[in-house]
């Protein structure tokens, strides 16, 4: 999915926090968004993800404005993921259930992604009782299981162990390669952006910098 951000302005109590004239995220590419704290990275991601509607300007997805159909084809993984108060397996299954995927296919897809993320031993555990690193992996697995066309990641690997980071980066790259899904990743880690991204944009005080 290609994303175009046109003349987007966002104010928080009369303060301009995002001021983007034009920005294009090409289809099938991984774009990193870096910048200091408070530069508007998360705000931009929330606007693209449709969670923040109070802004001026336009966000265009494959030539169209945001609709329920587009919602269904994108997802956002946050820095502090919220997992449902049910088993890990059921958390990962949820996006497929609401898309009415048949049971056999659901089982196959969920088992496959659980294996890929190496979280087999967690699948019967209550998700809201997991550690930070485990939660991040489950949250990413839940986001990837329905193969979205647009994957938005807000510092998905902050404060987790190197082994988990390795698995998550591998799966983000794998997802992009296999499905040609577009990925936008907010990160503070320059090395990570080098490992993952085709392109990087720098945000400073709500504007795209050099």
């Amino acid at each position: 999915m290609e994303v175009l951000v046109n003349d987007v302005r966002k104010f928080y109590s009369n303060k301009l926090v995002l001021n983007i004239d034009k920005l294009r995220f090409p289809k099938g590419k991984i774009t990193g968004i870096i910048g200091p704290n408070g530069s508007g990275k998360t705000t931009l991601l929330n606007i693209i993800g449709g969670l923040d509607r109070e802004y001026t300007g336009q966000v265009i997805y494959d030539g169209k404005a945001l609709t329920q159909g587009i919602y269904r084809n994108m997802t956002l993984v946050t820095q502090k993921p919220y997992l449902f108060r049910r088993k890990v397996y059921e958390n990962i299954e949820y996006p497929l259930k609401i898309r009415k995927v048949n049971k056999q296919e659901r089982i196959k897809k969920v088992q496959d992604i659980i294996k890929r993320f190496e979280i087999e031993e967690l699948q019967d555990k209550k998700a809201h009782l997991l550690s930070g690193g485990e939660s991040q992996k489950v949250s990413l697995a839940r986001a990837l299981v329905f193969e979205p066309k647009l994957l938005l990641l807000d510092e998905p690997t902050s404060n987790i162990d190197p082994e988990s980071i390795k698995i998550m980066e591998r799966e983000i790259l794998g997802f992009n390669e296999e499905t040609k899904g577009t990925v936008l990743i907010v990160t503070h880690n320059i090395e990570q952006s080098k490992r993952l991204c085709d392109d990087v944009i720098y945000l400073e005080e709500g504007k795209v910098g050099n």
Partner: protein
Amino acid sequence: MNYIHEGFKEAFKLLIGFDKEVYSIISLSLLVSTSATIIASIIFIPIGIHLGIKEFKGKRFFSRVLYTFMSIPSVIVGLVVAILLSRRGPLGHLELLYTPKAMIIAQVLLVTPLILGLTYSLAKSRGKTIEKIGLTLGAGKFDIIILTIKELRVELLVHVVTAFSRAISEVGAVMIVGGNIKGHTRVITTTISMMNSMGDYPMAIALGIVLLIISFAINSIIYSYSGED
């Protein structure tokens, strides 16, 4: 002191001997209050969640009005329902006054603000996060309400039980719209009230014990469900 002792002895006799009148009163109480709680919960839990999550004009004022209605006296509810259902009232042709149906209607109205208010308050504080995650995973409006109910199920169950407790323990509304007619609309609380004024304590004590047992059983279920000790 002897009459209290005798009262308890007689009360246990009535309960253990499966006294027909006592058990018909208990059954009707459970039927009326359970029906009212279920009806109000099915309708107003989803509405409470929707209103709690949604931002709308006048939400603060709405909250105040709703929270005020949560403590509405049961006699006022009974009076309103009685006026509506009385022979000369707008719904008099339905001939529901002094029937268990009228008692259910009154109790639905009584527990609705409680269920709606508690659910609304819960959704206001915790529903937004659940809605956000639901949206990021592609959930529609209906999916989000179902998801929120499932996520907040323990808290919602406590709210439902709170509403049931209010329904089964109130006297005013069921007395006014039911009329406390023997074998027809007599429930635990109206019987206790009547027996007390008549000085007939054994049945009042027996029914009081049953009310306490019901309350204990419900609380035990909640605690075991929510995993507390």
